[in-house]
């Protein structure tokens, strides 16, 4: 039997379940500290700025800019090989936190640092959607 190779599938934990549920509704959720108003990503039980525990999940605007990126020419595994070349990037959200993602919906050579992007969701399976980004054209 040929088992198709699988991608690295995120497995939600008690701490991240709410984030992934948001993704399945195509909403990008980040945390905001009720005490000091700092935003953070990934989800934690504490605020990294003030150590407070009063964190709320809020919907991010979904817009940001590319802090850096690479164009992957040699896939990490067979499961990703069909997508080569693909862009892996660090995106700084408008609210401040940085996250890693893919940039899709454009020619890879168009990607550059400082490029405005917006979130878009890639539905991997029933109940699992992965946040990715595409060029934001106002």
């Amino acid at each position, binding site marked *: 039997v040929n088992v198709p190779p699988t991608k690295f599938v995120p497995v939600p934990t008690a701490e991240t379940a709410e984030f992934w549920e948001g993704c399945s509704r195509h909403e990008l959720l980040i945390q905001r500290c009720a005490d000091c108003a700092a935003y953070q990503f990934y989800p934690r039980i504490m605020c990294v700025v003030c150590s407070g525990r009063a964190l709320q999940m809020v919907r991010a605007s979904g817009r940001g800019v590319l802090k850096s990126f*690479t164009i992957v020419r*040699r896939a990490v595994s067979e499961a990703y090989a069909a997508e080569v070349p693909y862009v892996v990037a660090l995106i700084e959200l408008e609210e401040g936190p940085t996250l890693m993602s893919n940039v899709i919906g454009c020619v890879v050579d168009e990607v550059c640092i400082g490029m405005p992007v917006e979130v878009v969701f890639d539905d991997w399976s029933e109940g699992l959607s992965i946040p990715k980004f595409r060029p934001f054209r106002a």
Partner: protein
Amino acid sequence: MSATLHGKVAIVGAADTEVGVITHMGATQLCVDAILRALTDAGIDKEAVDGLVTCNSMVEPYMYHAEAVAEYLRVFPRYCVSIGAGGGTTFTALHQAASAIASGICHTVVIAMADNIRSGLSRERALAIQSSSGHPQFERPYGAPVAGYYALIAWAHMHEFGTTPEQLAAVAVSTRKHAVRNPTAQMRTPISVEDVLNSRLIADPLHLLDCSLVSDGGAAIVMTSADRARDFRQPPVYLLGVGEGHRHEHISQARSLTTSAAADSGRRAYEMAGVRPRDIDFAELYDCFTPVVLIELEDLGFCAKGEGGPFVAAGSIEPGGPLPVNTHGGLLSHCHPGNPGSMFALTEAVLQLRAQAGERQLAKAEIALVHGQGGIMSSHCTVILGREKNR
């Protein structure tokens, strides 16, 4: 100055196994082979060892690796621990072992690390393990190979400082020039900047020759207190300074992509050693990918921030340059068996300081700086070693 390890401990034995593609030994055997060679170099029996520090193997992992190696050797140390800090493991281990000796927990420590990720893992498996430092939910799903994570810092450096792919390539070219002079290096054919740029793109801007090797091999050192160091048959190499820096685990959480915790570890090590960058005769820097060397050169104070590219392109780190770097050939050209990779930087520094490095022996080798980093610019440890106990 508070509690300090300056001049308190010395390396009195050092040895490498064969490196490259080793098919006649497994990872545990390589680790034990390295230990036996280092004990011979130091001129002591295994019974003299009362401390053992190892790092786990990817190919033959144990729940308690150092215990397993002690059992294999049939030694009964009073200090026995395996450490995992990625590519920084070697020097973090040295820091721990030096502290254990200085505080009297034990007297004679062996630090040994080996793996055979070239022969013991499939190519696919080796790639998967190397990229497993990515966050399982927030990084790995996006499919970056380990070169891709480092490409993120390369591109940021190019964008911020105008660093060019040619300057990145110059790191690989300089390192190969050193490897040509080392008979044990895995890759000894000279390469040019054009060769690097014409090699296959792995993750822009990194080409195949910007990436380190995948190898088998191991190395070990024997360390003891400075007071006892003269009783061994080799000239002692003293620990002058050591420092660590830790800023993140995952690259997406890094506060800066272009300044690393090497700035913290370097400052702490220089302070303990009482030396400045200009006092360093040669350096062995972690070179898993070429951009890492540029950032380390800057953060360790060998050139200004952002000047790493022009510094290397001017030939500064080549044989005969003002700061020879990776005189054995580094991870780029000597060998890279995974986490044990920095051990060869350490054994090379010891050989150079003892003036036993053969045809690649540096004319001036009194003070060396060795630096390791693990994860994706995550854990950093800087070590300064010297031929004399005090500076």
